[in-house]
């Protein structure tokens, strides 16, 4: 069983965001970087499947500046992944080229059974890369997967509106994008962390995949903080008074009803 897991390193949710003076992005100094939370479900699922199938290889792949991104790749290897590939670039890549880069790097490695990713990255919230990886590899995809069966075909449950689910049956290699609920990611153990230091981490230059960051399809610009909210209006009184006053405010002042 050969499984690839695509992961992204993102600023921790708790990190305070400061916008660069030219509004072209955020200041990266002082940002705490972590593995995208949804990608942890993908790594966990890959390790579980490999172990349940009695062996194989789980390879984690990421795009970004090698020195920084390697930390998250080591974390995934400390959880139990076997090896890692970093597509090294310090340039911004959009979802299109990130998906192309990941897909082409996987293709270079030869035959595989499954590609797992998180359903989205919490920094850009695009939820596009898994589908583009699948398109690049010419294989099916299922996103927002919260349950996976691995007997025979892949049986992936995808969460849709109102908690309803679509159950997909997929033959052969595919890309599955993990949602919360798929599993409970393990913590890296201390021996795991020690072992991870010696696991192979291969480096691919972005240019070797024939990708140039100057060919972006989309670019983000003019970063802005959300407009200041007016101070909260506290509604006082006993519960009956509070309720009456709130309804009046929503009807007459906020006009949202």
């Amino acid at each position, binding site marked *: 069983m050969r499984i690839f897991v695509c992961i992204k390193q993102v*600023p921790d*949710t*708790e990190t305070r*965001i400061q916008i660069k003076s030219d509004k072209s992005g*955020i200041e990266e100094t002082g940002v705490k970087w972590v593995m995208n*939370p*949804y990608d942890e479900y993908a790594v966990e699922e890959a390790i579980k499947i490999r172990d349940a199938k009695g062996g194989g290889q789980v390879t984690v792949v990421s795009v970004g500046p090698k020195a920084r991104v390697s930390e998250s790749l080591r974390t995934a290897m400390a959880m139990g992944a076997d090896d890692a590939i970093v597509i090294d670039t310090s340039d911004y890549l959009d*979802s*299109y080229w990130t*998906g192309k880069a990941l897909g082409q790097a996987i293709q270079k490695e030869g035959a595989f059974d499954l590609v797992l990713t998180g359903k989205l990255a*919490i*920094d850009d*919230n*695009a*939820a*596009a890369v898994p*589908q*583009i990886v699948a*398109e690049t590899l010419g294989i*099916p995809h*299922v996103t*927002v997967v*919260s349950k996976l069966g691995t007997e025979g075909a892949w049986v992936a*449950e995808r*969460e*849709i*509106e*109102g*908690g*309803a*689910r*679509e*159950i997909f*049956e997929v033959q052969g290699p*595919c890309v599955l994008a993990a949602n919360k*609920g798929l599993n409970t990611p393990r913590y890296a153990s201390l021996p795991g962390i020690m072992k991870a230091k010696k696991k192979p981490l291969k480096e691919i230059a972005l240019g070797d995949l024939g990708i140039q960051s100057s*060919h*972006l*399809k*989309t670019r*983000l610009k003019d*970063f802005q*903080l*959300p407009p200041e909210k007016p101070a*909260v*209006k*506290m*509604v*006082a009184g006993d*519960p*009956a008074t*509070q*309720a009456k006053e*709130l*309804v009046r*405010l*929503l009807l007459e002042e*906020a006009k*949202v*009803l």
Partner: protein
Amino acid sequence: MSKVFVFVEGQGAELKKGSQELLNAARNSGREVVAGLIGPGTKALTGKASKHGAKTVFVCDAADLGHYNPETFGGILEAMVKESGADVVLASSSVLARDLMPRVAAKLDSGSASDCTTLELTTSGVKARRPVYSGKCTAEVEFVNSPIKFVLMRPNQLPVGAGDAAESAPVKDFPAPAQSGKIKCKEMVKGASSKTDLTEANIIVSGGRGLQNAESFKILEDLANTMGATVGASRAVADAGWVPHSMQVGQTGKTVAPSLYIAVGISGAIQHLAGMSGSKVIVAVNKDADAPIFQKANYGLVGDLFEIVPKLTEEFNKALHR
């Protein structure tokens, strides 16, 4: 004349509100509007699409499209977009479109911008902004080398417009493509709620740990029913198993942007705020006057939620169902 293609989704006998918003925005842009509908029964909705602004309607109404399949839906949509000649494609940021659109865009060597909150569409271009970094800031998406520009808009961000029922548009049928058999949806399991999904809801009533147990969600449901709202929850209560995870709002749950968000017994952890700070008006009900949720709220009610919520239900009932 420049064209815009709008992917339209139905909900029963109506178009989804998000789709109506986009048709209206498309009509007002000065572009010629081509609408696309996919799925059994969608032919009955073509009149609604023209009412809201479509000049041409493409439809693929095949019976075996009852279940979503990224492969077939992708093939149909690719054909429709190509045929339309549009260089801008709009879709609502629905569960289906978020899965489908990025891949269709990639098939057409194009980029996509999902979950946008503002849209400026003109005859010559398109500008959209979207929240990034968990809603801590927003950025403009600039399309650079993208022959077709795919924009997915969050519902409830744009005006709907009245529409004109007298408008009609030519309808063109598209055949369903053959399936490879590599992927199929073999079953759909209904969810606990038949209400509008959280991501599309106009009003949300959300509960947190302050409700103390799963049974107390009943009082939120009563309030939600009065207001036509959808019930959400914080991560703490979803993790505790009081409600299914599909109801979770926040970082590892759903990102929502209703007109009105009522947070009941939710302290306002940053992971929760990440999922709902885009709401237009936020009401917080909490017994702790220092709870961080009040810093994000427009209106705050300090007190015992078990006393306040039933009173709110009573008052909303009076005000909305006279």
